[in-house]
């Protein structure tokens, strides 16, 4: 009898546990949302800027009532394709997408379109109208402003180096062309080296070290993103030249904003990854609610951050 009683108690306890677990699962699903599923595919999570972009997109999608999952393409177009195949097979409703390559990523977006899954590009552009909309930093204009400030700081003369980002990314060339649209009108400003460092901090440090061997007397370095600016600064500091050579970045990353405040980096172009991620998630929500009329491209202004106005900014945005 006692044995039967203990079995009964045990069954009740297990039953309660199962119900409790069920409730917990339901609660989590509720928190994650039940309007559908959104995939957030990011080119690389090896750069804090893209982590902010991806995590904000996931959070905004969840806040709008969707389940959201973050995928890291690790700057590898093949891995990105694999993610798209898995996302389409798993039946996601929309994709918030930060591509690895302006041309190489087009087929992934087209595949999603054919499967009826809308894609919204964030920050990086694809050379196609296959995405429903693309929300992008106005890199060109941002670098025109940065270029003007660069000329001002160098008094229109000197030797400089340019570190480029990934060559397959339109952002790399929009930044470089915006910068050169100013620079190339000043014949006394000479670019002595232009090399890619793949938007990567360690690569930039190595590239800068080798450039310094050949050109020890440069006056400034323009870097196509902040990760490369920090890598270049590290190389200059190691060579004891951090006080002589001016470093300019682009992004508005935490360490660079702090470095501008500390007088180490001269300036950067502030992009707004949180704004872009939120807008992309909202557009996906509107699309899934039936709206179809979206602008193909939405440029977002970039703001110049210098040692004079850095107090108005925080990492990845403006102080509220």
């Amino acid at each position, binding site marked *: 009898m006692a044995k039967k009683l203990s079995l009964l108690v045990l069954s009740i306890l297990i039953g309660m546990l199962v119900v409790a677990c069920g409730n917990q699962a339901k609660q989590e699903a509720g928190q994650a949302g039940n309007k559908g599923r959104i995939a957030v595919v990011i080119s690389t999570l090896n750069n804090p800027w893209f982590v902010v972009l991806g995590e904000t997109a996931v959070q905004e999608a969840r806040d709008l009532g969707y389940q959201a999952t973050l995928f890291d393409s690790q700057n590898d177009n093949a891995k990105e394709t694999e993610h798209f195949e898995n996302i389409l097979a798993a039946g996601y409703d929309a994709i918030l997408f930060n591509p690895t390559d302006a041309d190489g990523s087009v087929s992934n977006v087209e595949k999603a379109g054919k499967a009826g899954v809308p894609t919204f590009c964030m920050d990086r552009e694809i*050379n196609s109208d296959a995405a429903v909309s693309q929300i992008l930093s*106005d890199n*060109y*204009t941002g670098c*025109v402003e940065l270029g*003007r400030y660069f000329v001002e700081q160098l008094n229109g003369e000197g030797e400089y180096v340019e570190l480029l980002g990934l060559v397959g990314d339109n952002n790399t060339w929009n930044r470089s*062309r915006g910068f050169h649209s100013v620079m190339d009108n000043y014949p006394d400003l000479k670019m002595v080296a232009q090399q890619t460092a793949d938007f990567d901090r360690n690569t930039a440090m190595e590239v800068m070290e080798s450039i310094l061997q050949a050109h020890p007397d440069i006056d400034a370095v323009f870097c196509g993103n902040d990760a490369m600016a920090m890598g270049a600064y590290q190389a200059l500091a190691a060579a004891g030249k951090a006080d002589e050579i001016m470093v300019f970045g682009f992004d508005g990353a935490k360490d660079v904003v702090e470095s501008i405040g500390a007088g180490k980096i001269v300036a950067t172009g502030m992009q707004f990854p949180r704004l872009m991620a939120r807008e992309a998630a909202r557009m996906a929500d509107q699309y899934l609610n039936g709206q179809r009329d979206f602008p193909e*491209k*939405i440029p977002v*202004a970039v703001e110049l951050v210098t040692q004079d106005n850095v107090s108005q900014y925080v990492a990845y945005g403006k102080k509220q």
Partner: protein
Amino acid sequence: MSMEFLSKLIEKLRVLVKLRYLVYAVLTGIVLYHSVYFEPLDQHQLQQNQGELQPAEFARDFWENRLLKNLERAVSASKLIHLFKNDMATAVQQYGQTLGISSTHSYLVQGQGRITAVNNNGVEINIEAPPDSPEVFIETRDIFGNAVRDASGLLNIDDFRSTMEFNAISVEINKIIREEVVPEILQETEVGRSIRFVGAAEVNEDNPEISPLHIVPIQVQFGDRQIS
């Protein structure tokens, strides 16, 4: 089996092996011939660019056939500066062109006044109009960015394949201004001389820098002489 027969057989086999290599070589040659072909680089680039936008041609056509024929809608500089000082929201709403999400807006502006100063960067003008004779600065050196393209309100980014194409239009428009409009201004400019102008200005609504209002020139007239 005689030794002679054996040596003949070996010789025949050798010939067959040599023939086999020859056949392989011919087959490899055929495969390679059909896999690889050569053409001059300029011809290849020309073929690749077919169907793509030619920024210089596009900008020239835009300048002559669209922009210069649509300058009459430019707002008066004195009116605009007055609005900037007293009612920024109306200035943005009624006259500003905005690209995407931005607090900087572009304006097509026109006016007339007297040249008060000339320096390496441009021409300072005192506008002959009430209420407070504001000043404008006609740029002759810093002809950069997208002020003219965007202020015109005639081009839509969605009509271009990529942002790079859209930005390339600005580069070419600025080149026309730098090579055709600016030299004439520099030649005719003299302090005290009267001047009429149409141009493009960019103003940030949160941080307006309007003293003076910087203008990228599109069309300028000294007395009876028109430059554009």
